[in-house]
């Protein structure tokens, strides 16, 4: 029983305990949920240790036991530097979401917190499963609680939004399941490492068309989740209709399931197909960056604006991965965490505004800074982090991605950088319309400043933004080391192609100009 297993299964235990709570004991349920999720968070901090720096790039906390005999499905979990931070992101945001929902969720309180913890279980599982089948199981399991969170506690059009969300993901995962079974039938195992070795050694899926189709099957499933333009249409609906905690978990962690999947599975397993498709995918990512930003600019609804800004930010992550450079990979992972913190915080702050004024329309606000200066300050810092101001977290991620892109193809950098400029436009304009100007009598009356609970929610996130923007070295080394392992033979510095003699075997040759450029 490793610490990791405790972190994975405690949310499930907490879920069951909450189910057993009497329905009317609202405060008991709230307190227990907070306590349980905080304990899980503290335990997950125990996953950070000296080995990340001494022995980088390895999988640790490994558990590998059989689950189903035939076909051989194993409960195989372990974490590397990428999984580590994503797990901690999930465990950090769960208690925060409990606090966020403390007062704002009034009906069916027990079920709400139960689903929140079930969601945490699924999310943590996704980030540490090293058996493709197990990964798929967690992937689908996380879908169900989110479906209910949006559908039961959401706003007016919640049912439309939640069904759309569920069906989009289901359609993608159907393709992924076919690909997973196909790989199993060729290799006789679901084990990630073995399949990876088999693919690299050319013993499974050895022809290029096979690899291309398999890559696309995985990639489309993940791209829907990211979401990559033009598969993003479920996202604004889901975000706008979800309750605040749902939006936070969705934006901060669930979208990362997609990018994590691309980084962990799609790209390393099918590097040649990934490299060949990179041009198309990067084009879509850049379209997403610019399109998301432009659409965000004209949104009259705050949540929709933040949702479209997510489309834009996630485009950077995809761009980073498909540069196949160390910088691009590092930037992508860092950007996943940054987006989790800063967009999560933005949704929380929008939620605070909603709780006070019961409206998400920008037009209903104006002059909030006068009655609520502290709230405005918190929003300001978060917004600046989201834009990518130096010394705050997003800057580092975006910079690394852009640098990675420039190493490969400078034109990409130019277009992607447009997104940074545009993000400043829509965010600052939003801030101006909501917080500046003269506050109406009615608004002043309904706009108390942050209370203690809200401080407890937002201050840790702001501290993290600053920390991640200044002391990057506290976070990057494990990520870098793991990325270096993933990147290995598929680095953009190498030419890779299908060798004729032995089909599918990846041949690695240093590419002259890029190798020299370092």
């Amino acid at each position: 029983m490793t610490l990791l297993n405790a972190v994975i299964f405690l949310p499930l235990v907490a879920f069951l305990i909450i189910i057993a709570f009497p329905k009317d004991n609202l405060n008991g349920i709230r307190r227990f949920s907070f306590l349980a999720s905080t304990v899980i968070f503290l335990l997950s901090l125990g996953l950070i240790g000296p080995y990340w720096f001494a022995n980088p790039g390895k999988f640790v906390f490994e558990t590998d036991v059989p689950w189903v005999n035939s076909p051989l499905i194993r409960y195989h979990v372990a974490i590397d530097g990428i999984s580590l931070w994503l797990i901690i992101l999930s465990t950090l945001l769960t208690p925060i979401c409990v606090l966020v929902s403390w007062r704002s969720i009034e009906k069916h309180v027990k079920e709400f917190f139960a689903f929140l913890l079930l969601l945490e279980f699924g999310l943590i599982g996704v980030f540490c499963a090293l058996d493709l089948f197990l990964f798929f199981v967690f992937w689908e399991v996380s879908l169900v609680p989110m479906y209910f969170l949006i559908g039961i506690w959401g706003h007016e059009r919640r049912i439309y939004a939640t069904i759309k969300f569920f069906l989009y993901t289901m359609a993608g995962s159907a393709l992924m399941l076919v690909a997973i079974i196909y790989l199993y039938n060729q290799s006789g195992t679901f084990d990630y490492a073995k399949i990876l070795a088999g693919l690299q050694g050319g013993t499974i899926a050895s022809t290029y068309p096979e690899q291309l189709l398999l890559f696309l099957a995985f990639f489309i499933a993940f791209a829907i989740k990211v979401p990559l333009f033009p598969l993003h249409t479920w996202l604004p609906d889901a975000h706008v209709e979800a309750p605040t905690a749902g939006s936070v978990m969705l934006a901060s962690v669930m979208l990362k399931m997609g990018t994590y999947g691309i980084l962990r599975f799609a790209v390393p397993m099918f590097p040649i197909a990934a490299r060949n498709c990179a041009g198309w995918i990067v084009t879509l990512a850049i379209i997403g960056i610019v399109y998301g930003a432009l659409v965000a600019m004209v949104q009259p609804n705050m949540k929709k604006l933040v949702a479209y800004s997510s489309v834009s930010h996630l485009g950077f992550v995809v761009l980073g991965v498909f540069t196949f450079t160390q910088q691009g990979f590092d930037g992508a992972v860092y950007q996943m965490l940054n987006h989790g913190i800063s967009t999560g915080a933005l949704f929380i702050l929008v939620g605070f505004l909603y709780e006070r004024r019961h409206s998400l329309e920008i037009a209903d606000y104006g002059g909030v800074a006068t009655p609520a200066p502290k709230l405005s300050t918190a929003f300001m810092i978060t917004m600046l982090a989201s834009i990518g101001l130096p010394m705050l977290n997003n800057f580092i991620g975006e910079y690394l991605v852009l640098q990675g892109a420039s190493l490969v193809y400078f034109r990409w950098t130019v277009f992607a950088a447009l997104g940074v400029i545009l993000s400043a436009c829509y965010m600052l304009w939003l801030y101006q319309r909501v917080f500046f100007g003269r506050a109406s009598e009615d608004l002043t009356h309904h706009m108390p400043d942050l209370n203690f609970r809200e401080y407890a929610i937002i201050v840790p996130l702001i501290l993290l933004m600053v920390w991640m923007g200044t002391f990057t070295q506290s976070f990057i080394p494990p990520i870098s080391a793991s990325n270096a392992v993933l990147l290995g033979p598929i680095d953009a510095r190498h030419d890779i192609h299908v060798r004729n003699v032995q089909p599918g075997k990846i041949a690695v040759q240093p590419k002259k100009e890029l190798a020299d450029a370092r």
Partner: protein
Amino acid sequence: MPANFLPTGIDYLRFLPEIIMIIAGTLIMLVEPLLGEKKQVGYGFITMTGFIAALVAAIVANNVPGTSFSNMLIVDGFATFFRVLVIGVGILSLLSSSQYLRREHAASAEYYALLLFSVTGQCVMVTANELIMIFIGLEISSIATYVLAGYLRDDKRNNEAALKYFLLGSFATAFLLYGIAWIYGTTGSTNLMFIRTALLTPGSQRGVILAGTAAALMFVGFAFKVSAAPFQIWAPDVYQGAPAPVTLFMSAGPKAAAFAVFLRVFMTAFQPITSRWEPFVWVSALLTMVIGNFAALTQTNVKRMLAYSSIAHAGYVMVAIAAHNQIGIAAAMFYLAAYAFMNIGAFAVVTHFSRRGEKFVNIEDLAGLGWKQPVTAALFSIFLLSLIGVPLTGGFFGKFYIFKAALDANLVWLAVLGLLNSAVAAYYYLRIMVVMYMKEPGEATISLQPLSAGIRTTLWIAALGTLVLGIFPSVLLNFAIRSSALIK
């Protein structure tokens, strides 16, 4: 072969479950005039005892595998699997019926006797080693089921359902019989192994063509019984019209038994001409899935929706048959077991909810059930998630094994289309969950009585089964794989 027509003790032992159930059924018919219609509990008790004794006998019989009655019947793992399954379905149907019958003032002894006879017929089907026995078993099961479908004789829809089922069913059985006659004419035998040997003998091309025609005719008969396209038209009307607990029974028991004989005949007797029937099954599987799922999308009646969903699920099993490999047989077996649990669960909720005269069978009527009766709704959600195929439920592993078998057999496109189909299916199952949890309670939910003991037991057993198959599938799958080697 010197025919030994005198059965021995072991023959009876292998045939014991059927004997027990026939005795129990006959006993009920006999004591009814003595006890009168009121002794519901007594008939229920006899039926349950009969089922449980038969279940035990079926398990005991598995220890003495082999053929009996001059090769007419065969007891092997495959037969035992399906015997246990159909008897289990019988038990759960019995548990969910009693309250319904009381509610409709239709309690009488015949219902129990018919249930026993129908299950007996299914047991004969799954143990048959011979086409005539298959036919006899099918008829025993079908005729009892026809009567059950029209059990509430004053109800118009019941009558319509029974009549449709009977007329179309008889027609399909005629096809089957014609196919049997044809194969007898071609090979000179009705024994499955003998037919197989005859077809394997390098002979004239004409024999293969004749056998292919016979296979096609029998395919029509079986496809009707399992409601596979293009012979599925009867299913929605019959499922909707029949009394809810009978629908529960029909959609699980007779269907599983029909699939069992489908598998046995096509995987043993017609195995030598696989390449000829495989394309038909392929097309039929795809059509069944598409028709079932897309028709279910627009339904407003829960029973009719579940009827179309049951067509779609038959399509998934057809995929396993199209794969025509051993893992496919095991996958079909596993799927039918998982399907029995989740579908019985779903129909038990419908039985409970529909009230007298089946007044509340629209999806909208379920509004707010999640908050009015959280346990019922939570269990229903488990069944629905399993029908969608969400992991950690039996339905997921069932689908997984089936599509794995299809990919093993290189049916890549069938697998892709099938899985995309199951994504479409998610929509209509989710709609029920939406209504249960995301709508305010309506008249139907507010006036709902608590669960009766029988239905509660059914629901918990079904939910437990669904989850166990979803979390520890090896329990059942290992047995299915061991017994899927039909040809010995």
